[in-house]
């Protein structure tokens, strides 16, 4: 698929010397959902702010739809919609007015029919004449999305879209994001909720201390880097791993009821058959066997810790 956003060697040093981004490069394909994961202060918002024109890069270049964000800023920005992390809305404005304002800013003629479609899609149409201050937090987030979509962008940036919202609303947001993807919008979202990336992203990027540590297809990342655990539930609890099984690098669960074996799914031999045979030879009674895939969170924590 064609690349719609290209970030090359971008770095940012703020006044005072803080280096927020270090030679960041990435390519975003049209129509995908990329989740940019990173702890607080990793540089996620700085990267988005540079792409959207709110922060000047110290070096490097960014092209959106083939347009340079500085030399050809109008064409580049026309393609982008931004939903900021903070709920930045004028409290006394009415919903439809503020969405209309956003559309105008992006050079689009007034089109109330189009805005009605967007507001209906976001379940905001019956609130169109309400003042922003009368809306709930979730509704305000939807208004921010409506504003960002008002000029029909091809790329949507969602900066921590579900930070501080309840579980129900978070799932609601994910549904909206999936719908937008179906409509052909490319979505880049930053988050520090692993669950969010796992649920909706096609690709996952991990950023820490201003550096992109990796970008991979989510499924490939999980199968490539994910480790599995085999849990052997025993008939009787143990005090320690028997000597006969010491070479299998097993750990004993709390209470001694299970043996835990960690293995690499990508390896040629997992060692499971030998292990189960050795367990039987050791005279242990097996009550149950189960496996567990390590989550994106485990991968993320591992990567960030390695980088630290």
């Amino acid at each position, binding site marked *: 698929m064609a690349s719609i956003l290209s970030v090359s060697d971008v770095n940012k040093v*703020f*006044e005072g010397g803080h280096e927020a981004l270090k030679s960041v490069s990435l390519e975003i394909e049209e129509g995908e959902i990329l989740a940019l994961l990173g702890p607080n202060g990793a540089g996620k918002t700085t990267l988005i702010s540079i792409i*959207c*024109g*709110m*922060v*000047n890069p110290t070096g490097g270049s960014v092209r959106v739809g083939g347009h340079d964000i500085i030399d050809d*800023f*109008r*064409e*580049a*920005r*026309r393609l*982008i919609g*931004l939903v*900021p992390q*903070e709920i*930045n*809305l*004028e*409290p*006394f404005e009415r919903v439809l*007015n503020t969405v*209309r*304002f*956003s*559309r*105008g*800013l*992006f*050079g*689009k*003629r007034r089109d109330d029919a189009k805005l009605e479609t967007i507001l209906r899609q976001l379940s905001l149409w019956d609130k169109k004449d309400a003042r922003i201050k009368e809306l709930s937090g979730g509704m305000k987030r939807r208004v921010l999305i409506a*504003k960002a979509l008002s000029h029909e962008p091809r790329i949507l940036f969602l900066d921590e879209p579900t930070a501080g919202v309840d579980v129900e609303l978070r799932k609601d947001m994910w549904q909206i994001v999936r719908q937008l993807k179906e409509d052909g919008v490319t979505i880049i979202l930053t988050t520090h909720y692993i669950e969010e990336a796992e649920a909706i992203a096609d690709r996952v990027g991990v950023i820490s201390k201003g550096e992109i540590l990796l970008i991979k297809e989510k499924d490939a990342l999980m199968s490539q880097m994910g480790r599995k655990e085999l849990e052997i539930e025993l008939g009787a609890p143990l005090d320690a791993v028997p000597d006969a099984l010491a070479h299998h690098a097993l750990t004993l669960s709390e209470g001694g009821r299970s043996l835990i074996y960690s293995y690499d799914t990508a390896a040629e031999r997992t060692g499971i058959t030998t292990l189960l045979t050795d367990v039987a030879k050791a005279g242990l009674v097996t009550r149950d066997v189960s496996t567990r895939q390590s989550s994106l969170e485990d991968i993320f924590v591992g990567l960030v810790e390695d980088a630290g």
Partner: protein
Amino acid sequence: MNFEAIKAIYVFEMSRFFRTLMQSFISPVISTSLYFVVFGTAIGSRIESVEGISYGAFIVPGLIMLSVMTQATANASFGIYFPKFMGTIYELLSAPVSFFEIVVGYVGAAATKALFIGTVIFVTAHFFVDLPVAHPMAMVAFLLLTCLSFALLGFIIGIWAQNFEQLQLIPLLVITPLVFLGGSFYSVSMLPPIWQTVTMFNPVVYLISGFRWAFFGTADVPIAVSLFAIALFTGACLMVIWWIFKTGYRIKS
């Protein structure tokens, strides 16, 4: 040129004004009436005329200028400061809008509001005094230029201000004293010679003098000098704004 963006900013700003239309309308009417009662009737009754003009009529250009300058500055500074304060400025910075278009939108709206208030005072004054206008075109031109230049100044203040106190600082401590001491309620020729010299360093003197000339055909300073002064002031404001947007001063890191 992104005309739709200019229109969007202008309409958005004007809608804020129309939301509070009654306050916007009544406030200048009441304050002008009070000035006429205090200065025109109470004090003015003891002053026969100034340069052959009744004192009540003499103060009208100064009153209009006083309101226009303060309103243009206040509206423009608030207009751009509020998005900074609320965080909504992210939209302006991420939109395909040039800085010139942003200035036209905000300054245009602030100048329009000030012009509206100046017109309201002009009309209100006719209920109190006979008000001839010797040079109508010049009056309109001076009014428009003053609205524009002080809206530009307000825009600069709005960008510079980091809190509401700073937003009020320059209008209260600089503009209002300069307007009061700029010959709003007196002719410069009524001052002792030393103060006549000092007052010439006040740029507002040139604006009020030129505006008064448009009404009565008499001025403290030659009309050409007044025009040059307002052009210089407008040019200086434009230069500062150009620099602000070139460097991203206090809006872009």
